[in-house]
């Protein structure tokens, strides 16, 4: 009854691709995260001004960087889906979205935790923190829109439009928030002191950045796989996989 449909070939291929890529991402993530974090938290020298509290940089900076690049990745997936009409691209988009939202959330929480010793308060309306907060709203919007649709195909398209509208707006939002922040400079402490970072502090940061990227990739791949299985639950190849797994 469930016959082979031509465009559906792609989901199986995508599933296989996910499986092939996943081990590489997992290995890279585990290795770099453990090396980078250990090095950063234990062996890297303490900052002469901030003492040990600067070490949160090893979590904060990678997550903040990835929160933005993940949004771009999500929007690219949406654009691919829109232009070439790939169902799998929309699946990828929706697989990526919550991962990016979590990265944004981590960046916000670690930013606040860092702000406490540095600024003496958990939250200031710093330009970067504010942009990050708005970014979180944009992620939540895409996810909420997708989940509001019963027909996931339609939901993917709708969420894709919002993802693309969001990516067009991110530079505008970022720029406007910076403008707003300098305008109200009296009220807040804006800039970090940014001395050039010592190499023994930089290396663990770069390694952790790689680790975070690989981690985001790995989790997205797992979510993508699950999404494919959930959406294609009636396909013969999925049934076959399920049977093999239960043996």
């Amino acid at each position, binding site marked *: 009854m469930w016959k082979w449909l031509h465009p559906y070939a792609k989901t199986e291929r995508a599933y296989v691709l996910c499986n092939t890529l996943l081990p590489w991402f997992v290995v890279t993530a585990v290795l770099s995260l453990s090396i980078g974090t250990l090095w950063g938290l234990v062996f890297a020298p303490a900052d002469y001004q901030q003492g040990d509290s600067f070490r949160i940089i090893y979590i904060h900076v990678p997550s903040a960087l990835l929160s933005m690049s993940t949004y771009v990745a999500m929007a690219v997936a949406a654009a691919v889906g829109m232009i070439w009409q790939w169902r799998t691209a929309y699946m990828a988009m929706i697989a990526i979205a919550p991962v990016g939202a979590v990265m944004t959330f981590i960046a916000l929480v670690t930013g606040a935790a860092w702000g406490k010793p540095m600024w003496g308060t958990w939250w200031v309306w710093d330009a970067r923190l504010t942009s990050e907060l*708005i970014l979180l*709203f*944009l992620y*939540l*919007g895409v996810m*909420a*829109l997708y989940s*509001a*649709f019963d027909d996931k195909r*339609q939901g993917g*398209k*709708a969420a894709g*439009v*919002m993802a693309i*509208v*969001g990516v067009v*707006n991110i530079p*505008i*939002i970022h*720029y*406007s*928030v910076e*403008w*707003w922040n300098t*305008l109200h400079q009296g009220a807040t402490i804006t800039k970090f002191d940014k001395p050039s970072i010592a190499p023994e502090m930089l290396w663990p940061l770069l390694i952790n950045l790689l680790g975070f990227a690989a981690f985001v990739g790995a989790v997205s791949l797992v979510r993508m796989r699950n999404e494919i299985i959930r959406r294609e639950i009636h396909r013969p190849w999925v049934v076959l996989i399920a049977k093999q797994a239960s043996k």
Partner: protein
Amino acid sequence: MRSGVYAAMFKREYTLAFRQKAELVQPLVFFVLVVSLFPLGVGPSPEILQRIGPGVIWVAAILSSLLGMERLFRDDFQNGWLEQLALTDASLAGLMAIKVFTHWLVSFVPLVIVSPLLALFLNLTEPMYWALLATLAIGTPLISLVGAIAVGLTMGLNRGGVLLALLLIPLFIPLLIFATSAIESAAMQLSYMPQLAILGALLLLAFAFTPFAISYAVRVSLN
């Protein structure tokens, strides 16, 4: 021939908008109510009111626009008119642009008209008022155009409300920032042309791209 089609669209939208006067007035009443709550909430001190006035008016404008935007496609989606529109000779993007324009005309122009009253409530000075008027004139079409994309996507869901706010409020932040900062500049007797220029640029950008995004969104909802 095709320009006739667009003119007919405008005529229909305009006629029908005035058949539902109650719905037309609701966002406007909401706007005035929200603004008049603030003096009660923060105290009647003229300095404080003048300080927060621009922000209050703009936040209220954005919130009331969310209330009114939901109406934009709801009826025509439910009764099937949008399906018929998608089958005409004219481009859907053009028709949607006219729809949004009519909506702006009947729902935001009244808001601009009552703004002197609110400026009075919040003790805005005359230069601030002119700046407010200028930002409303440039900013509200921007709200309509960008908002219509999200309304187009959510019209089939029957639970627009909060979802619409979540989708749209982040996108309106730059607008809020530049508009209020223009009014603050006016309060300090400074030129607010830079802010208006940026808002104008955003509006032109929206003119160029949003009609296509709106018609795409409508097609997704018709799917």
